[in-house]
């Protein structure tokens, strides 16, 4: 009897399986939806981080837009050039030369460099602190409360001594930090080289006012513009023309401008070179980093 049951059970399951397979197979053909197979392939080529750096809700949305021809193929900042090349190959497009975009924090003032600071005990976000006047003298510079660090999904931006510092090793260039910064001091710069020259200040006031609020702020003297035509000064602040930027062609101009800048506000930012790593190689790092608790009640200055 037991054998009868087992054979019967197996037989009925087999029959059931065949029956359902037939029904589903029929349904699959009848209710088939035409999907562009390229969408699948584009989806596979994309990194799937769903970070929204391209301006679409997720990788799938972007894939649909790319295949429909509504979006360029090089918008994915996480995948970078190789991803753009893969997409262009799937879609049969010509690859234009594109550069990875990375954020640059246009402020170089550590807590100690900022003047006229007042104790701030409000909501510890830049967005809240930005509404109130008088948190610090400079109304252009980094507040150091870390909205950008919160926004970063890749742990690539940190607050060091009250200043947002990008970790270019980890950064994928999704631009979340640039979007969230209430003072708009983070800009996405096309990185044509491992290290890019950048103006590390956002203050548009006259020299006297800048001096009053910051020890390291750009005074808008315009010396850099005199040294090289890469720089254009407007609103007392130089800007670098990244379309024409080419480190090799302008190497002497740039070196002169960096040297002449009285406030030393021109920096190379980006991944550390081998030379930088070699210079710090013999510095000993502590094995474990001690937690550094700070309270809002502090007799000295509030460090954020």
């Amino acid at each position, binding site marked *: 009897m037991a054998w*009868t*049951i087992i054979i*019967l*059970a197996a037989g*009925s*399951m087999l029959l*059931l*399986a065949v029956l359902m397979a037939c029904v*589903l197979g029929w349904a699959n053909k009848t209710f088939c939806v035409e999907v562009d197979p390229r969408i699948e392939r584009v989806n596979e080529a994309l990194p799937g981080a769903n970070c929204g750096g391209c301006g679409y809700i997720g990788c799938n949305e972007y894939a649909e837009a790319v295949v429909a021809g509504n979006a360029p193929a090089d918008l994915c900042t996480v995948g970078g050039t190789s991803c753009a090349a893969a997409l262009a190959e799937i879609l049969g497009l010509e690859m234009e030369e594109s550069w990875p975009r990375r954020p640059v924090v246009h402020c170089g003032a550590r807590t100690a460099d900022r003047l006229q600071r007042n104790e701030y005990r409000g909501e510890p976000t830049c967005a809240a602190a930005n509404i109130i006047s008088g948190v610090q003298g400079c109304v252009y510079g980094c507040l150091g409360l870390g909205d950008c660090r919160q926004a970063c999904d890749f742990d690539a931006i940190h607050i060091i001594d009250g200043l947002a510092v990008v970790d270019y090793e980890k950064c994928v260039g999704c631009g979340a930090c640039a979007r969230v910064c209430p003072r708009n001091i983070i800009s996405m710069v096309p990185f044509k080289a491992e290290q890019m020259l950048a103006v590390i200040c956002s203050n548009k006031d006259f020299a006297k006012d800048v001096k009053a609020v910051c020890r390291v702020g750009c005074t808008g003297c315009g010396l850099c513009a005199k040294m090289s035509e890469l720089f254009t000064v407007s609103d007392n602040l130089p800007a670098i023309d990244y379309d024409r930027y080419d480190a090799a062609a302008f190497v002497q101009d740039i070196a002169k401008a960096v040297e002449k800048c009285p406030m030393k506000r021109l920096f190379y930012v980006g991944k550390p070179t081998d030379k930088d790593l070699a210079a710090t190689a013999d510095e000993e790092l502590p094995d474990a980093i001690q937690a550094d608790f700070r309270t809002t009640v502090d007799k000295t200055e509030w460090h954020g």
Partner: protein
Amino acid sequence: MELIGQLILIAVGAAMINNFVLHYFVGICPFIGVSRRVDMAFGMGCAVTFVVTVAAFLSWIFTFFLLQPGAPLAQWVVGLFLPAETAAKVDLSVLSYIVYIFVIASSVQFVEMYVRKFFPVLYKSFGVYLPLITTNCAILFACLYIMKNVVGVGPAEQWDLARSLVLAIFAGVGFTIAILIMAGIREELDACDVPEPLRGAGITLIVAGILALAFLGFTGMDRGLAGLFN
């Protein structure tokens, strides 16, 4: 008259008194997951109602003709090959779970294809939750509830197809009611100042609990209804 009375009792019982979500706490996953917008919640409710009806229809047929002890189909097959052993009842009810899961998964696949073809917008808003109906315990629960009333009861109390279908449809209606109320509350909650630690899942579960308490108020209604029809 008695049959209609029983059907109404089963219907009200499944939809209100013993609401699957708020009394038995089955089907919580879509109940929490897809109750953010009322229109999406309604779509989910409709999909679950449809799937549970199809699954109940198929599972009653399989249970009655194949799985219950002495089921006609199984008995006939045994009689065909081993006429000597027909005296003992063939009991295939061990297969019930696997057959139900099989039936549910297939009907969900079917519904997914159908919705994708004819309601692309609904398909998009369902996202991952449509395949998740497969693992929606409310549907398996409905099948098992029907099985309980088919296997191991006397021929007089044994449920027929009509009763099973009424249970399934109104279980789906009850699920829709619960998820719609939940979605309405959650839409209002978006505008409320919820204490920070409770935001998200916390307040949702609290609201679900209060809803379940409110549905407790229907208890005892079945006795009154039964008195009405007998």
